[in-house]
């Protein structure tokens, strides 16, 4: 019985013939056993019928080109025949192919591993469980870092000589001064948008002038501070993580420690204290720019002149309206700097981890800032301010 793979063979294609000789199965391979032919050969070789055979012979004689995948297919065939209790002989291996056949034969002793495919329900539950544990551990470690940094901050307040003044000034410039253009522009635009939208709604009740009250309360109490915090988290929190993370990758942190320097004191404190000083100022600036935008829009949209705007503004403000926004800023700053530095120190020794931690730092700090803001709202409500 002759079973040939592709009866009209192209000149250089790979082929094999199988022939029965009593209980002997002869497999004769020929042509170019290379990668491009592998798909066809793989399929055909898997369908090899061996019923009633007790011996087999694999003939390499007509193979004129062989690469690792061809050699593997022939070896696999041999192993499969052996697994079905056939005595297999390999014959006529051309001299030139001998080294490769031997190498593959010698190296591939282990059965190929089939990889687990990630589709099962169990795998899903496993992942969910791991993420939850991971998140719990993250919170726990952050709390520990919070404790450490708080302790160092207190120690520095008692002993201000330990503070790195040059680094602190540098951080204030970087996180505060350099953020002014972007923060100013965005706050201004937010003020414009609020005034426009507010006026549009309030006009229906004939209460346009209360647009100023709306602006004053929303910008001073919430929006100014949140804008500043979110911009700073995106600009500086991520920068903290990336800077410290890169130092971690370069083993600079380890070098600092072995030189007898305190990482928290050298790297974390200037950033934390710098941001705590800068963010309230940024919040004030964002408030001013937001109100300016609102005032300009109010003039063009509603015809409220600047003196009228200021008079209405003074009436709208309670004793605490301004301070409510400013008081929150140092807390936001502490959260952003803490998370930024914490994620930076968590970076592992590969470049990919810097990017991952930076993303995580921004997301986590904005998340925590908004949680803190919500808690402040509850607190201020209880205090009636």
């Amino acid at each position, binding site marked *: 019985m002759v079973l040939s793979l592709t009866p009209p063979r192209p000149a250089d294609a790979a082929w094999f013939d199988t022939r029965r000789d009593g209980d002997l199965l002869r497999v004769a391979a020929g042509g170019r056993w290379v990668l491009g032919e592998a798909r066809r050969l793989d399929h055909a070789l898997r369908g090899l019928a061996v019923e009633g055979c007790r011996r087999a012979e694999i003939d390499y004689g007509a193979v004129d080109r062989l690469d690792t995948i061809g050699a593997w297919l022939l070896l696999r065939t041999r192993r499969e025949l052996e697994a079905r209790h056939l005595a297999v002989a390999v014959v006529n291996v051309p001299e030139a192919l001998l080294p490769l056949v031997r*190498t593959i034969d010698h190296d591939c002793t282990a059965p190929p591993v089939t990889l687990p495919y990630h589709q099962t329900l169990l795998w899903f539950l496993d992942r969910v469980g791991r993420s939850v544990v991971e998140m719990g551990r993250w919170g726990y470690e952050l709390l520990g870092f919070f404790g450490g940094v708080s302790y160092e901050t207190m120690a520095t307040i008692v002993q201000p000589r330990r503070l790195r003044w040059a680094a602190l000034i540098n951080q204030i410039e970087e996180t505060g001064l350099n953020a002014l253009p972007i923060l100013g522009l965005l706050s201004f635009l937010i003020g414009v948008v609020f005034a426009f939208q507010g006026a549009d709604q309030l006009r229906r009740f004939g209460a346009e002038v209360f647009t100023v009250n709306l602006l004053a309360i929303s910008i001073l109490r919430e929006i100014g501070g949140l804008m500043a915090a979110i911009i700073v988290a995106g600009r500086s929190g991520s920068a903290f993580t990336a800077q410290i993370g890169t130092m971690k990758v370069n083993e600079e942190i380890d070098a600092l420690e072995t030189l007898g320097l305190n990482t928290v004191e050298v790297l974390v404190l200037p950033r934390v204290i710098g941001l705590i000083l800068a963010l309230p100022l940024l919040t004030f600036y964002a408030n001013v720019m937001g109100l300016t935008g609102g005032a300009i829009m109010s003039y063009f949209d509603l015809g409220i002149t600047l003196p009228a705007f200021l008079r209405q503004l003074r009436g709208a403000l309670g004793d605490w309206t301004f301070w409510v926004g400013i008081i929150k800023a140092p807390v936001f700053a502490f959260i952003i700097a803490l998370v930024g530095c914490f994620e930076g120190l968590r970076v592992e020794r590969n470049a990919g981890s810097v990017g991952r931690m930076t993303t995580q730092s921004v997301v986590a700090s904005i998340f925590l800032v908004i949680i803190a803001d919500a808690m402040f709202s509850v607190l201020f409500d209880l205090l009636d301010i």
Partner: protein
Amino acid sequence: MKPPADSSDIAIKVEGLLTRVGGHVLHDHVSLTVRRGEVLGVVGGSGAGKSVLLRTIIGLNRAVRGRIEVLGQDMTRLSGQALRRVQTRWGVLFQDGALFSGQTVAENIQLPLREHTDLPQALMDEVASVKLSLVGLPPDTAGKYPAELSGGMRKRAGLARALALDPELLFLDEPTAGLDPISANQFDELIRDLQKSLNLTVFMVTHDLDTLRATTDRIAVLVDRTLHIGTIAELRTDPHPWIHEYFSGARGRAALAS
């Protein structure tokens, strides 16, 4: 996959190459021929432009002037489909393996197969494990991520990926740098074995004198923006001071004595 053999038995031919990086001329009138089945080692001082030479030949860096032929194709004019075809015929091992960090080792090895062939998944899994055993990695490496591997294992896995498409030509950038001497020896043997059984042509940038002695047929020394090419014995008689110091300095003598 492999096109018919080229009439010539020359794998790489570089003529009158001039490259410039950041305003610095790194190679001037560099010419080089690598025959099929040959292992060529490229050495030179730090910053002499060894890696740039490799990158220029594989087309990652543009030559200012000169002609580069790889596997009979003029690399300076090749683009699109024709370039892709040449790229499937060579394998490149970068310094730290350059494994894709988001993929397991098996997926890394299978990526070129997935892009350039239509093998069924079961066969690709087999191929991945064959390549892993070829480079001497245990089978369970297949499911690991590059970050979980040591430097030496990453290099081996990188080599397995470079071998995925059964290339005719292999480019290695500092294959033994950063390995301990035992791993480096094993790597040398591995390269030599693979070269013999797969009849590879190897273009290798290295600093390692032991690797040079153990694996290469000829050596190209990059000094003063040009190449001095020859066997170790020929280069030891070269009067150029850097080459003399390289082969006859303390390290050179120790490595070449045995």
